[in-house]
């Protein structure tokens, strides 16, 4: 069955089974391979994308539910929060192997949009579903605080 998908501002016609995980449509059909397959059972967060502005696990999101909402992947994620996160990630060398990082960044961006100055507890709650097997959690947390600081500095 054909579905119309809005991904990163562009409309795509996709002819796949409605029960196909959005992750595989993004990666295999649309060739947007920045979104990673980690576990396939919504446990690791590597496949996080934004649907209607909310972070979701694309491995656990059926295509048929995705056609009505704007989707943003790591390739199309833009804005002040994204720039601040990118700067902080580079400055702190946050990624190690990097495999989980697109999911980490998508969750971190959504967090900063919801809570511009998050506490450690806010970060723990928002990022708890994103696993990093290199255990860069302290750098991720510091990077989010740095990014929040950049955003405050821009506004002042």
């Amino acid at each position, binding site marked *: 069955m054909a579905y119309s998908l809005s991904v990163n501002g562009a409309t795509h016609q996709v002819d796949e089974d409605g029960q196909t995980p959005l992750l595989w449509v993004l990666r295999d059909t649309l060739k947007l391979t920045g979104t990673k397959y980690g576990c396939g*059972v*919504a*446990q690791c967060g590597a496949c996080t994308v934004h649907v209607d502005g909310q972070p979701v696990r694309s491995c*656990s999101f059926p295509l048929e539910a995705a056609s009505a909402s704007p989707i943003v992947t790591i390739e199309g994620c833009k804005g002040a929060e994204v720039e601040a996160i990118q700067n902080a990630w580079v400055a702190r060398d946050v990624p190690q192997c990097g495999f989980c990082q697109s999911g980490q960044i998508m969750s971190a961006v959504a967090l900063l949009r919801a809570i511009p100055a998050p506490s450690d507890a806010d970060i723990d*709650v928002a990022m*708890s579903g994103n696993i990093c097997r290199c255990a860069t959690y302290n750098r991720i947390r510091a990077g989010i605080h740095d990014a929040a600081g950049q955003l405050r500095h821009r506004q002042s």
Partner: protein
Amino acid sequence: MRWRRASGERRRFGCLSILASLVALLVLGVAIAFRPHALPSSQPLVAAPARSTGSALRPVSTFASIADPSMRSLALFEEAGRVIEHPRCMNCHPRGDRPTQTAAMRPHMPWITRGPDDAGAPTMRCATCHRAINFEASGVPGNPKWKLAPIEMAWQGKTLGEICRQLLDPARSHLNRAELLHHMAEDELVGWAWHPGGNREPAPGSQAAFGALITAWLETGAACPV
């Protein structure tokens, strides 16, 4: 023979033997402290045992032989309790901010909290993973109304009698008798317990059979176990 030391005579101690004793005690203490230990391992929370086994619920008609209405009411609720205390129901009635999952009722992974509306924190919603259906591709269960029971309706750690009295207390259940019956017999999210998808064991019987038990229990005086 002298029985007492002469005054002024000093008692003599063997310093070497005392030192040796202290060293021996030290060695013994270190040996006890560093003796091999079995590594601690996590244990699953034990689900409350059901009073009877089998996947079906006894129909209301089989309770007709109990002449005393109060005793019949009690028996009806205890049969309904097989559903209430089933992990499919108990997992979403936690006594804290985190649900449990699986038949072992282990803490939910990933680490999530109930949030202000019992559907997750604003930055980590239940809907981050749980959608409107049981999604076979990922094995993640779902329902359009997916959320936790309010904390006032916490069931875990309570006896069936305590749960019974809680159900009948509108201050805690937020339900009058009619709403309570509707919740049990017709609520879509409650109904998920009989259609959990994946390899999850459904609650005993059916929602219709469960609703019939609750109806009969209410009609016979809504007796609660002690």
